[in-house]
Structure formats: C-alpha cells, structure tokens
C-alpha cells in the first residue's frame, strides 16, 4: 500500500505523528537498529542509570535556585527548600533516591557486564569508559552528601577526607587540595558544590558521549549463548519507534517506582552540623555505598598504621576492575566456561554485601582481626564451595556428561564430596591463618618486635603458606576451567586412588 493509502487509513494521531516525522526525521535511521534480544530490561540498566541522572539533573537544578554553598547558610537554605519551596521535600527525596538508584544501577550494570563478558574484544575501551563513569558516579554521591551540612553528612565526609590524608604522597596532598581545599569549611563546601554541580556532571556527560559513540560503532553485545540462535533473536528492529518506546516504558516505570519510594519513605532533614553536635555524634560513617570500604578500614589490623595498606588494597580492586579487559583476554564468554572469573566476581559481590550489612549493624566499632578473618574468609569459602559444586553439577548437565558420570558409579560422586570437603577445610584453615598472621603483625607493632610475636607470625605464615599450597595443588588436580568435566573427574579419581 502506498503512502497515500497509509494516510487515508491513519487516524488523527497517525497524521500528527506523520507531520512531526516529516519535519523532525524521527524515523530516519541515524542510529543502528537494535537486535530483538535487546528487548530485555537487563540490556538497559545503563540507560536507566542515565534516566536517573537526568531526573537528578532536573531536581538538582531546581534545588540550586535556593541552595547557598556557604557553611553559615547551607543548612538553613536546605531547610528552606524542605519547608518553604513548593514540593521541596519531594524534590529532595526524589533527588536522593534517584542518586541511590543510579549507584545501584551502575553497580548492577557493571556486574552484569562482568559476568557476561561484555568487555571482550572489541569493547575493551567501552568497559574502561563505563568504569570511569562508575567512579564519577561515586564521586557525585560523595560530594553531594556533604551539601545539606547536617551533622551526619559532615561527619561522614570528614571520615572520607581522613581517608584521603592517609594515602601516600603526593597523591594525598593533591586529592586533599582538590576535594577539601586549604581554607577550612568554606573552601571545602564550595569545592564539593563545584565538583557536584559542574565538574563531575560535565565529565560524566563527556564520558557518556564517548561511550555512546562506541556503542553505535560496535552495537549491543550479543548474548553469551551467541545470538540465541533463533531467527527471532537475530531480527533487527529500528531504534524509533520500537526501541525508543520500550525504553520510554522502562524509564516511566522507573520514575513511578521512585515516586512511590518518595511517598513511602520521605526524607527527614537531620540536625544541623556544629562542632558541639559533631563531638556528641558517635556514629560517624559514610553513606551505604561506601560502607563496605569503611567496614574494611575498621578492621583492627588496618587501624592507624595499617590504613594505607587497606586503602591500597581497595584501590587495587578498582584498578583490577578497570583493567579487566586486558586481564581476561580469553575469547570464551559463556558463564559455564569461565569458572575462575565467575567465582571471583561472586566472591566480590558477596563480600561487598556482607561488609555493607555488617558496617550498617556495627557503626563506629573496631572489628577484631580474628572476627574479620572468620566472617570474610567464611563468606569467601561458602561462595567458592557453592559455586564450584554448582559448576560440577550444572556444568556436567550443560555439556551432557552426567550420564557418563553416573555410569562410573559412586566413586566419582564421592570424589565430588571429597573435593568440596577438602576445599572447605583448606579455605577455613587459610582464613584462620590469615587472621592469626594479621593479629601477630599487629602484636609485633605494639610490642616492638618481641620474640613471641615473631614466633606467632612465623607459625601463622607457615600454616597460611601450607593452606595456599594445598589449595593450589587441589585446583591443579581438579583442572578448573577446561570445561572437560568427564576427563578431569576421571583424572581426579585416578589421582585420588593413587
């Protein structure tokens, strides 16, 4: 049917849409079409984070009309927004909750990408850009938290600023000048305000443009199963109207959820900051998204002298994540064939969740080394054992090997149990030895090098080395990562009998 025929059958809406399309070129395919499999919310977590950013930009701009970035007026102007500005509490609440949602969405987007290996060639730089955007998002959260100038926000920021001062020079001086300044509270608040409303959003936008350019060049990554094989999965659909309206649905539902949250849990302004109020406030801790780092730093071994070590370790985690595409260079993307990276990722997620909840439950408490080693080691052990057992069972099913395994009788099944038991034992032993070694190091520092502490350290290090060696041997025998379940179980069984 020709265009004239289409027009004849269009209603009013169709004619209006056609009028706009003719002038704005909405249906002109300037963006590459998306595959059908991309009609899935998990493909749009990053886009939803951008939607959250837009909501924050709008609500933040409105609040900026009233906010004064000066310590003497910051709290009063925030209070004014709450009490005197039209829908002020709603604005503040939505701004905060979308910020939380943005951080959560960015984390989910990153971890989904990690597990389905979106960082593989040719998308390595997309991953790096996305990680940088994640850091900027955390920076936005950190800088925005101070602005209301409440006792909670100022105390939490002081904790963060204290961490910066523990970093090695000249990094410490540079970051301190950049974030805190040299002129006390006024300089600090003004810097935070500038970073929050100008510098970091501008950097985020530039990075977003770069990432979108690369997305247009490479397209949406294929499913790990390899384009899902079906005709339907390979079908391409135009960005407008199909994908645009799908994204609009997700965005509006996300917005509605934020509205509902703001109704259910409206924000209450905390008391104002003052030196007296701060001295009486004993629950100094950062906002939830930094709580896992803070909890890590509260471990006894990392107090004072150990702080730079802990900060270096946390920085290393971020650097390793940033450089992931250059570390995980294999071509395999399937979750079932990447047990090492999947296990490491699951341990990371589990540890972050455990540390965050633990930090929330123990504000201001120093964590003894043994307790930390048991909780963190226990979490890692549990995740590793469950993951490895899942791999043995599920992977076997996936590659159709279970029938051959079952034919070989109970010896192979029992070898799986023995492997899990050996792993559990070794990881538990390693965690205890690690805690004891950290404790003995702390003892060495406090006693000034007493002989008993040296012996304690040597013993703990020896046990730790033995546990690590035995784990490495076990991993070698189990031959992780080849995907050849039958071969490795048979080899393991033969080795076990020997």
């Amino acid at each position, binding site marked *: 049917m020709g265009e004239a025929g289409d027009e004849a059958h269009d209603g009013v809406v169709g004619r209006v849409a056609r009028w706009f399309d003719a002038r704005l070129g909405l249906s002109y395919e300037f963006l590459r079409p998306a595959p059908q499999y991309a009609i899935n919310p998990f493909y749009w977590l990053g886009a939803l984070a951008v939607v959250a950013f837009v909501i924050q930009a709008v609500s933040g701009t409105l609040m900026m009309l009233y906010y004064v970035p000066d310590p003497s007026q910051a709290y009063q102007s925030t209070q004014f927004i709450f009490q005197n500005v039209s829908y002020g509490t709603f604005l503040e609440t939505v701004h905060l909750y979308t910020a939380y949602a943005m951080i959560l969405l960015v984390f989910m987007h990153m971890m989904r990408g990690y597990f389905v290996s979106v960082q593989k060639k040719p998308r390595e730089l997309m991953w790096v850009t996305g990680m940088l955007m994640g850091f900027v998002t955390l920076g936005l959260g950190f800088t925005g938290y101070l602005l209301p100038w409440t006792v909670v926000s100022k105390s939490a920021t002081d904790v963060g600023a204290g961490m910066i001062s523990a970093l090695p020079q000249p990094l410490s001086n540079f970051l301190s000048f950049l974030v805190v300044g040299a002129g006390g509270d006024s300089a600090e608040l003004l810097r935070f305000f500038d970073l929050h409303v100008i510098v970091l959003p501008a950097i985020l936008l530039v990075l977003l443009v770069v990432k979108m350019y690369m997305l247009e060049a490479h397209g949406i990554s294929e499913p790990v199963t390899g384009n899902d094989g079906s005709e339907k999965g390979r079908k391409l659909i135009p960005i407008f109207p199909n994908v645009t*309206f799908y994204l609009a649905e997700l965005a509006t539902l996300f917005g509605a959820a934020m509205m509902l949250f703001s109704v259910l849990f*409206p924000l209450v302004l905390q008391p104002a900051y003052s030196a007296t109020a701060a001295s009486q406030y004993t629950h100094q801790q950062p906002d939830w998204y930094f709580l896992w780092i803070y909890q890590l730093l509260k471990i006894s071994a990392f107090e004072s002298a150990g702080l730079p070590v802990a900060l270096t370790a946390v920085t290393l985690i971020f650097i390793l994540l940033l450089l992931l595409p250059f570390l995980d260079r294999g071509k395999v993307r399937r979750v079932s064939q990447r047990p090492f990276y999947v296990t490491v990722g699951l341990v990371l997620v589990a540890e972050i969740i455990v540390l965050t909840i633990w930090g929330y439950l123990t504000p201001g408490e120093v964590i003894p080394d043994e307790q930390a080693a048991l909780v963190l080691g226990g979490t890692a052990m549990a995740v590793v054992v469950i993951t490895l057992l899942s791999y043995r069972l599920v992977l076997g099913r996936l590659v159709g090997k279970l029938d051959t395994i079952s034919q070989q009788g109970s010896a192979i099944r029992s070898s799986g149990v023995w492997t899990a038991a050996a792993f559990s034992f070794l990881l538990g032993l390693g965690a205890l030895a690690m805690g004891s070694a950290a404790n003995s190091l702390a003892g060495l520092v406090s006693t000034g090098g007493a002989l008993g502490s040296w012996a304690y350290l040597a013993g703990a290090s020896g046990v730790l080395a033995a546990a690590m060696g035995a784990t490495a041997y076990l991993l070698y025998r189990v031959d992780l990562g080849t995907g050849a379940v039958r071969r490795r179980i048979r080899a393991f069984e033969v080795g076990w009998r020997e």
Partner: protein
Amino acid sequence: MSTRNDWGSTKIFVLLLLAVQVVAVVFAWLLNPLGAKSETEYALLLAVDLVAFALISYVGRLGGTGKDPRGGYVLAGSAVVLFLMFLVLLA
C-alpha cells in the same frame, strides 16, 4: 493477528488511560504545593501518569508491530494504576 474488535477495545483502553492522565494532571495542578499532604498526593498522581504512559506505550508499541499485548502485563499495569489512585484517595 488482531481483529477489528481487538483494536476497538485497545482504543477504548488507551482513551481511558488518557482520561486518567488528564484527571491526574488536573488534580495535581489544584494541589496546595506547600502542604505536606499535597507532596504525597502529588508524587502519587505523577506515578499514576507515568504508569499510564508506560501502558499506552506498551499497547501502542506492540499494536504497531501487529502483536497482541500480553494480557497479564496490561492487567498488572491497570491494577497498579487503580492501586495508586486508591492511595491518592487515602492520602
């Protein structure tokens, strides 16, 4: 393949949602913006508008491709709109 009757009921459904949106906007416009209660009502009315928009978009998108919208999604969305409107009355 959608029948003429299906399209008729879809159009009525969309028109109903549009009417709900108009009512929500008018009510939001009439609220006292400085009252604490109004903030709750305003947020809920905005949520009604957004969910209604998502439903219209969903029905329109699938209708445009010749597919039938999933009844479960439409029912769930409509239930959410009604629930939110009920909350507005309670607020």
